[in-house]
């Protein structure tokens, strides 16, 4: 088992490394560099050259890549090409924001989705199941930004219950904080839960074909126990996997929600970084996203191993 986990960790590092290459050289083919973007319409050749020299962009891409790799391995994320702040200071705050939002959404949506997913699987074909299936399917099939905009129009603009943007001045109490984040939380919970409910239900129903489920029925085991004890323990691997993917999404994929609610998160930062050709920043964000993905899936893998007696107790 340790060997399996160790192997997974190695694979994770390999993935991170490949990502760093893809992102670095992917960015270097973009038209315009940080200096050109920063100066924009106001660029002249001298000012471009001056800014490039100041940012160190006059050296070849591969040199900068290895320099970056070296710094990265010592934990130094470097300095932003745009604005000159350290990447760590830019990221730190937003990473906190992202984790706060993602965390609270996860705390709400994971138990909710697992509960509803199990409920739907427990009573297949009933109105509850049909309503959940159709409802979640519709939510999954509609663009996220539309859901967000609708909810803003209803709850923020018309009813004025919640703020339309997730803006915090700092120093809020917990409830002020929750209130400020209410809209993005709501939207993300809706979007993420829809996906997880579906997958939980599907994961359970997938093992429901097994002979041991039929055996449980023939032993007179009540449905609640069939689902919670017999099916869930066998479906837990795929379900945890889906949860991990959704959590990774909460860290890296919420750019649209961040845009709509003007929330300063990491995804938006990376988009800004691409737009300003701020390579060190984009690179650092990409590493964080990839790292999150790798770590979450690793945890999911380990959880799957732990939940599977075959892997946990070899013969």
């Amino acid at each position, binding site marked *: 088992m340790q060997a399996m986990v160790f192997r997974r960790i190695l*694979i994770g590092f*390999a*993935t991170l490394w*490949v*990502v760093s290459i*893809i*992102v670095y050289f*992917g*960015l270097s*083919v*973009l*038209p315009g560099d940080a200096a050109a973007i920063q100066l924009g319409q106001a660029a002249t050749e001298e000012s471009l050259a001056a800014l490039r020299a100041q940012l160190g962009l006059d050296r070849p891409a591969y040199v900068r890549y290895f320099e970056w790799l070296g710094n990265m391995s010592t934990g130094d994320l470097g300095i932003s090409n745009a604005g000159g702040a350290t990447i760590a200071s830019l990221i730190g705050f937003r990473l906190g924001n992202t984790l706060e939002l993602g965390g609270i959404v996860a705390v709400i949506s994971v138990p909710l989705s697992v509960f509803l997913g199990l409920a739907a*699987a*427990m009573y*297949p*074909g009933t109105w509850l199941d049909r309503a959940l*299936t159709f409802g979640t*399917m*519709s939510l*999954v*099939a*509609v*663009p*996220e*930004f*539309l859901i967000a*905009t*609708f909810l803003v*129009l209803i709850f923020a603009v018309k009813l004025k219950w919640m703020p339309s943007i997730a803006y915090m001045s700092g120093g809020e109490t917990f409830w002020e904080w929750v209130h400020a984040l209410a809209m993005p939380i709501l939207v993300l919970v809706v979007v993420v839960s829809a996906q997880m409910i579906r997958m939980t239900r*599907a994961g*359970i*129903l*997938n*093992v*429901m*074909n097994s002979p041991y*489920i*039929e055996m449980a*029925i023939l032993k007179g085991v*009540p*449905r609640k126990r*069939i*689902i919670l004890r017999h099916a869930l323990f066998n479906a837990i691997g795929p379900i945890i996997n889906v949860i991990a993917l959704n959590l*990774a*999404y909460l860290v*890296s*994929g919420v*750019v*649209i929600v961040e*845009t709509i609610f003007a929330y300063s998160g990491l*995804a938006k930062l*990376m*988009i800004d970084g*691409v*737009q300003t050709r701020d390579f060190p920043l984009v690179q650092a964000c*990409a590493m964080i*996203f*990839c790292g999150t*993905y*790798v770590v979450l899936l690793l945890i999911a893998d380990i959880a799957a191993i732990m939940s599977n007696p075959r892997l946990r107790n070899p013969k």
Partner: protein
Amino acid sequence: MSNTTENPGAAEKVVDEIDKFAELPDAPPKKTIKLSWTGKLAAAIVAAWVVVAFIGPWIAPFHEAEFILDDSFVPAGGCAEMLDELYDIEEWTPEAITKYCSDADVTLFLGSDYLGRDTFSRILWGARTTIGISFVATLFAYFMGITLGIGAAVSGGYIDMVLSRVNESILSLPSIMLGLIVVAALGSSIPILIATASVIYATSVFRIARALGQDIMVQDFVEAAHARGEGLWWIITREVLPNAAMPLLTDFGLRLVFVILFISSLSFLGLGVQPPTADWGSMVRENMAGLGYGSYASIWPAIAIGTLTISINLIVDDISAKSGGSLAKKMV
């Protein structure tokens, strides 16, 4: 042949005698795919949209880029007498519509968009763009994903490892981010959108195809072909692919939905299909400002997206999600 033992001989005799006890089939004949009424309705909706995608531009009253009215967000039923002869209507109230449009030449069935173009025409035109791009992108994604995925499954070893790592890396990056980088680098034309979406979604297809490939590769009939001395090409195309087709096909539907949503999201960020080409995602986006005062200009394309994607999902669910449900219904 002479039979010295008694029993086999007896068996032969009995078998010959008793023809009426034919070998019984193993199980009731396999069920063919059968859609529930929701599935049938969904299939009809998808079929209708596909037809619209083909003939939309011919049945649309206007060109997608035609500026019909000066007024934006005119409600459904608004009208224009002739293209350049415009009403100067302060507000498109229901009364105004009745007054001006009762015998107008040209009626905007679903109202006008933010630039005064005909929403209905744009939805009809947009069907081609949206469905076309997504379909072609998904097709390419499948082509790439299956080729590489099955290739990795079949070759194994070093090739499999490298392909899987690169794939995992792309998969670990948020898709919008990748889309953004590519579109920023190469601009946002339809071929580039298709290429971007197909590369991004090829990663998921790769995973599925690889897993399916690995499952099928250990099946006896593949081993039989292998033992016969068949080459890799035959094994992939004749033995593995036909058996992966059904699960891949249902996944195709879901993937198509994701591609539609992905391209809509890119449009939301201003990177999707570029104007004046009508695309449902962009239409939702560009008319969103009208939502605030009751214009449906962004609702119609949203409904178009929703009906299409939900219908595809319904069909896929109908085909695949039956598994397990039947036994689950036996629970007490």
